[in-house]
Structure formats: C-alpha cells, structure tokens
C-alpha cells in the first residue's frame, strides 16, 4: 500500500481565549489515501471543521495553536510550512468548499473573475486564458450557459449555482485534495443531491482525494470510501464506510445512524444518541420496544373535529415601480391554498425554499395579513378579526420559528422570555406563580430549572429550540405552527426535538402544522402531508401514502433526492 496523500497524526488544536484554553481537537489521527473520499462526521463543535481548517492552514492565529501533531501532505509536514509555502499549496493542491455558498463568494466580483483569479494565482496564464478556463470549469460543474453566467455576480445566481461556482473554483487547479465542509447543508434537498452527485463525479474524473465533513451520516453514504466519526474533539470511530454503516461499533455512531428519520417505517419516537450511550459515553442497551415500527394509520381516525380550515387563501406582496414608487403589480407568495386540519393531528407542509410555505404559516396566524380567502379556526372566521380578538387568538395559536439563534431576544433572560406571554395575557397570579408555570414547562421541555436566569446565548442550539417550544406552549395553545423548527439543528439534536414535539402533542393534545423542506422529517412527524410549489399545494395525502405513491413529478423528485446512503431500514440490527 502506498503512503496516503494526507496523513493527520496525533493532531491537537487548542483555542486560547480570554477565559482560558479550550481543546478543539484532541490527539486525532487519520489518513486520506490518494483518490479516496473520507467522510468526517460529527455534530457541531465536535472539532471536524477545525481539523479541516488546520489542514488548510487557515486557523485564526494567535487564538488557535497546535501544540502537537503532524499534518503530512505528500509526506511533507504542512505545519512546518511558512505563509508563502502554504499559499502555494492552498487552492492549488488542497482546496476547500464551504458550507455557506451565499456568503462565501465575494459579492462584488463576477463569478468568472473569481474562478479565474484562482487559476491566475497558481498558474502563469493570461487573463483571457484564465477566463476561458473558468468558463470551461463552469461548464463542467453544470452551470447552464457558462459563457454568459461567468459574467454574473453571485447575487444573480441561486444557492445551488453558487455552490457549483465554489466547486469550480476549488477544482480550478485540479487539486490533489478537496475539502468539503458541509457543502450541502444550506441547500434544498433536490439541490443537495445534485451537488453530491457532481462532487462525486468530479472526484472520480480528476482522481482527487476528498475530505467530506458533515453532521449527517446519511449524506455521505453514497460517496465516502472511509468514515471518521468525531465526538467531542476525539475520533471515536474510523473505518471503511460499509463497516461503519452496517456494523457501527461506537454507540455514538449507532446513535447517529438511528436518529435520522427514515422515509418508510419509523419507531413511535426516534432513537437518539442518548439511547445508545449515557452522558459519560458509556454504551447503553436500547430497549427493544423503542425500535418497534409505529403504524400511524392505526390511530388516524380517532379524532374527527376540524380545528382549522383554510379556504382559497392568497397572500400577495406588492411590487413597487415608477417614479413615485407606486404598486405596479403583486407577487403571490401564497396562491389559492385550501386545506383542513383535524384536532390533535399534524399537517406537514413540504417544499423548497421560496415555495411560500413560511408565508402560508404566518398568514394563518395573521402575522402577515392575507390578501383574500378565509381562515376558519374552531368554526370561527378569523380572517378579519382585529385587536383584542386577535390578541386573544394568539393564546390559542402559536408558532415556533426556524432559527433558534435569532428567535430569542438576546437581552432577556429565559425566565423573562417565558413569563412574557403570561404577562401579556395576564395569565397566572403575580410573578411568583408565573415563574412557577415557566419552571414547570421549562423542565417539561427537558431543561434544568436552575438555568432559568440565564440568557439565550448561554444555551446550545438544541436547547434554545426547546426554549422556543416552551415559550410557544406557555399559553397552553391548541394549535402550533412549527416553521422549519428543526432544520437548523444537527441530525442528532433534530431527533430529540422531534421526539419532544411528539411528546408534547400527546400530553397537551396539540394540533401542528409542521413546515419543512425535509420530506423525511415531515413524513415522520405528520399525519398528512402537503407538497408546496410556487405558492400552491400541489399534492396532499396521508403521510404513509405520499412516499409510497407520489402522484406529482415534483413530489417524486423530492423523494428521490433524499439521501438513502447505505442505511438499512431495519433498526433492530442496532439493538
């Protein structure tokens, strides 16, 4: 066996901050053989991105320090390279694709120029040659009409196209190693699939090595040769991809594999990492009843009262124009949507970004005013109620937002956040009682009541989403809209939150509208699923039916885009 292209040996990375030293990467080693793809999997904060930045030499000095270890690239220790030597490597022999295509491209330069720049840094070619090569690269990464597109600025392209540009830039000098740091996380599922296919194809074509970083094992199932699993700064499992998927050894890996909702059969509650190991990393045995596949349809007809009925709902935004900025036209974000929802049930709404699903959710709550149609809640038309009545309605209808970071006011403590709804609606007697109510719910969503006086920024993303859920439930609503409420979370955390939502639904008899771009998540949680495209619900059916018998082409595309990887549908193997 020849020596690997990249070999990370006993790498340690520390971050020195004002408060002390944090170890981000703890003595890890792995190899990337030439022409192979290595997946590095772990949740946020596990040290996977730091590792990749260390390889690139892009760690922020002087905060980040590497007290120990080697990064051998072609046998040379990159850690001994100076700035100029590293620059010659970067973008040339090792290149990288980042998670956020929206912000990773310089907004003020044409994409063609940005690709050509990489070429000209490392090759002495004329501007013209570089440009032509850039156009050629754009063609290779599948950007339609590359000659014209090269003249575009990043904001004129879609997210998927931008990521393709990033890829073109990364492969411009035919690097030996391509590092992909969560390249598809920010993209819609269908796009994600295309990008993955593209990367895989390019890897084959150029015989590159690839280091693919993700929090979602499912994503790399199709393309990784080897998988390295990282957990809390350590490598916990390192093996051939097949081995990892079929005979995962470490409980964390098992948890990761189990927590992703499957399209078909799922247990009543998703398995999470904590089902496989305790807080100290000691393996636990999963109780067999946790893996019994749950048949939703069995209890589907128990409830029959209709809670919400939406009829021909239209929400439109004005398009301004002319000298005086008058409204010249309207954009219909929600276009003639109708559905009914029974008490205690969950309606899933699925669609890609821009399809109008978020607007629909907010229109139902009248956070955005609908333009026409009607919303009938509990038999009462609420489309035109105002002020006090609307305020009272807020007690019954709640929403949980997507981004747990921005949906909590950073200047309020958690107890303030939780008691605020009570104050507004004058629920509960005095501060003390309200605080008790907050405490109760806070524990119910799985948080420690002693942390009530903390500020949101002191919590992790998953914990924050729990706080958001607690806030939404403070008023004991009947109806909750979950707007992409788990999309920003790592898969392992996502499973916990989904379970929590189901538990709460059961306990409080909640009715959900669950909005997501991820069909597998919607499929898991919802009783009925509506597929949205361009402001309309194009298909609506029972959750169990929709993946079995999709009627629309669009639905089929969504379904096929879900990474299936090597995941077995049989959970029992994990027990």
């Amino acid at each position, binding site marked *: 066996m020849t020596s690997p292209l990249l070999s990370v040996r006993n790498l340690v990375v520390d971050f020195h901050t004002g408060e002390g030293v944090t170890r981000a990467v703890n003595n890890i080693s792995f190899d990337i053989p030439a022409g192979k793809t290595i997946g590095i999997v772990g949740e946020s904060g596990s040290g996977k991105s730091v590792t990749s930045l260390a390889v690139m030499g892009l760690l922020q000095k002087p905060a980040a320090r590497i007290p120990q270890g080697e990064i051998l690239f072609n046998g040379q220790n990159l850690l001994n390279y100076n700035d100029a030597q590293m620059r010659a490597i970067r973008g040339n022999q090792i290149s990288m694709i980042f998670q956020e295509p929206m912000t990773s491209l310089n907004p003020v330069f044409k994409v063609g120029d940005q690709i050509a720049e990489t070429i000209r840094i490392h090759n002495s070619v004329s501007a013209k040659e570089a440009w032509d090569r850039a156009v050629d690269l754009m063609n290779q990464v599948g950007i339609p009409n590359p000659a014209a597109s090269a003249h575009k600025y990043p904001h004129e392209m879609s997210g998927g196209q931008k990521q393709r540009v990033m890829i073109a830039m990364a492969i411009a000098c035919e690097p030996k190693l391509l590092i992909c740091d969560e390249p598809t996380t920010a993209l819609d599922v269908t796009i994600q699939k295309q990008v993955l296919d593209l990367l895989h194809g390019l890897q084959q074509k150029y015989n590159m090595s690839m280091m693919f970083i993700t929090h979602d094992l499912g994503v790399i199932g199709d393309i990784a040769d080897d998988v390295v699993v990282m957990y809390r700064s350590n490598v916990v499992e390192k093996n051939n991809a097949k081995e990892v998927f079929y005979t995962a050894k470490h409980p964390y890996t098992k948890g990761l594999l189990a927590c992703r909702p499957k399209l078909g059969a799922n247990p009543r509650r998703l398995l999470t990492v904590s089902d496989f190991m305790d807080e100290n990393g000691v393996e636990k045995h999963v109780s067999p009843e946790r893996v019994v596949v749950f048949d939703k349809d069995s209890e589907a007809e128990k409830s029959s009262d209709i809670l919400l009925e939406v009829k021909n709902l239209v929400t439109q935004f004005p398009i301004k124009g002319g000298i005086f900025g008058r409204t010249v036209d309207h954009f219909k974000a929600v276009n003639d949507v109708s559905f009914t929802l029974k008490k205690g049930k969950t309606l899933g709404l699925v669609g890609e970004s821009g399809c109008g699903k978020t607007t629909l959710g907010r229109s139902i709550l009248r956070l955005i005013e609908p333009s026409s149609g009607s919303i009938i809640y509990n038999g009462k038309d609420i489309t035109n109620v105002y002020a006090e009545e609307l*305020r009272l309605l*807020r007690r019954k209808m709640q929403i949980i937002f997507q981004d747990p970071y*921005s949906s909590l006011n950073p*200047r309020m403590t958690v107890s303030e956040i939780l008691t605020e709804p009570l104050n*507004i609606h004058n629920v509960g007697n005095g501060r003390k009682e309200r605080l008790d109510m907050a405490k109760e719910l806070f524990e119910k969503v799985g948080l420690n009541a002693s942390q009530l006086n903390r500020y949101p920024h002191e919590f992790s993303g998953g914990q924050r989403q729990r706080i958001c859920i607690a*806030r939404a439930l403070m008023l004991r609503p009947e109806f909750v809209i979950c707007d992409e409420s788990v999309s920003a979370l790592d898969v392992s955390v996502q499973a916990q939150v989904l379970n929590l939502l189901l538990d709460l639904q059961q306990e409080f008899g909640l009715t959900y509208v669950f909005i997501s771009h991820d069909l597998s998540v919607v499929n898991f949680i919802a009783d009925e699923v509506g597929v949205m495209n361009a402001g309309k619900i194009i298909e609506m059916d029972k959750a169990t039916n929709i993946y079995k018998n999709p009627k629309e082409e669009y639905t089929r595309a969504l379904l096929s885009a879900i990474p299936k990887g090597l995941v077995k549908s049989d959970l029992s193997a994990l027990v």
Partner: protein
Amino acid sequence: MKENSLWKDAFKRLIKDKMALASLIVVIVYSLIAILASMGLIASDWAKEVGASNLPPSAEHWFGTDIFGRDVLAKVLHGTQIAMSVGLFTALIAIPIGVILGAVAGYFGGWVDDFITWLYTTFSSIPNIMLLISITMILGKGIFAVYIALGATSWVTLCRLIRGEVMKHKEREYVQAAGAIGGGHFRKLFLHILPNVTHIVIINTSLQFQFAIKSEVILSYLGLGVQGEPSWGTMIDDAKLELARGVWWQLAGATMAMFLVVLAFNLLGDALRDSLDPKLKGK
C-alpha cells in the same frame, strides 16, 4: 458557565482592555470633578484673585494665573463641570429625540418613516453652524442655549442610525415571536427592539459627548458659548489673544484637560463598540 447578561459580558470585556479601562477611569474622574464642582466643593473660588495677573505656573499655582490673577487650575476644574454638563445635557436632549424618532420611523415605516426621514434630511442639509447660531440667538446666550443648540443638531445622526438598526431588527424572528405571543407594537418596539439597539446609543453617546465638548470651544470662539463663568472654550478663546504675549499656560491647561477627556471618550467609544457590537463579538 456563570449567569451572565450580555451587558455584564460586555463590561467584563471592556475592563479587560487596559486602554478602555484607563479611559473609563478618566471619564469617571472627570465626572467626579464635575459633580464636586457643581456642588461647590471644589473650584468654587475660581473667581477669586489669588495673585498677580498672568503668573506663569509655579508650585503655588500649578497652571499659573490668568489675566485677572485667577487660578487657572481652578478655572480648568470649573470648566470641567461646564464641559461635562454640555456633553451630558446635549446627550439628554439628543438621545430621546433621536431614539424615539428613529425607532418610530424604522418600526412603522410608511408615511411616518417618510415624514421623519424628511425631517432629518432637512435638518442635516442645513449647515450645522447656522442652526447653532440661530438657536443661540433665539434662546439668548448662555449654557442653556448651548445645550439646546447642540442637542438639536446632534439627534440627526443617532436618529438615522437607530432607524436603520430598528428596520433590521423588526424583521428578526424574536420580534415576530413577540408578535405571535400577542405583544403589541409598543411591546415589540420598546421592550424587544430598543434594548437590542442600545449599544448604538451608548457608542454614539460616547462620541457625541466629546463632540459636544469640542463644539463648545468653537461656539465660544464665535462668542456663543457659556457666559459669565470659565469654560475650556472661553479659556482657549482667551488664549488666542494671550499666546502672542507668551501666556501659554491657560491654553495649555484647557487644552490638556480637554485633550484627556476627549481622548478618553474617543477610546471608550471604540472600546464600547468592540465590546457591545454583536457583529464584532469574539473578534
């Protein structure tokens, strides 16, 4: 992890920065001097003749004496009171106007925004000096007019900043969330958004403060400044005639006093921005 508010965090970061800490101390010392002077505990005898006219600095009179034989140090200390009060009252006038108008414009948009934008565009398009002079003309001279004139011209910047920031924040999900739990406009704007733009007010105030102190000098040069008591402005203005006769200590005293506090406010403003601006957090 201890229980920390963002403010406490920011404060901790602030005092960790030695330069900022030093600036903060300077500002506090000046404020103390100003308070003591306004209570008449120090420099209350600035008007007293303590020696001959225009004595150079000596052990007895550290900053020398002025044309009337008054102690320049006492005048500088008394001037501190004026300077700090100019900064303070200017801020007290400008902040409520700037914040309320800016917040209302940014939050409600529509014709309210149009009107307020028009108002501050109009104000900022008239040269400041004209507004300053005309307002002092109307109100008569004196420190009160200085407060109001400076306050009336410095709300514009704050208003513009707050408006922009509120516009950004009102789209944030936490504000939407406040609406979803039934919070009204008042709650959303004043309880949710404003605390999140306070850092702008603080940073701006720190910079406005020093601007006001410097403006007082210019106003004094134009004869529109504080009257009947010594301020740094009048002292520097006096110096324009005295310097030629070699009386440099009045200029030096007032300039140094002003230099220190203006520098401190400037540095503090920078440090505050570094520690309060969420954008720059952790960098």
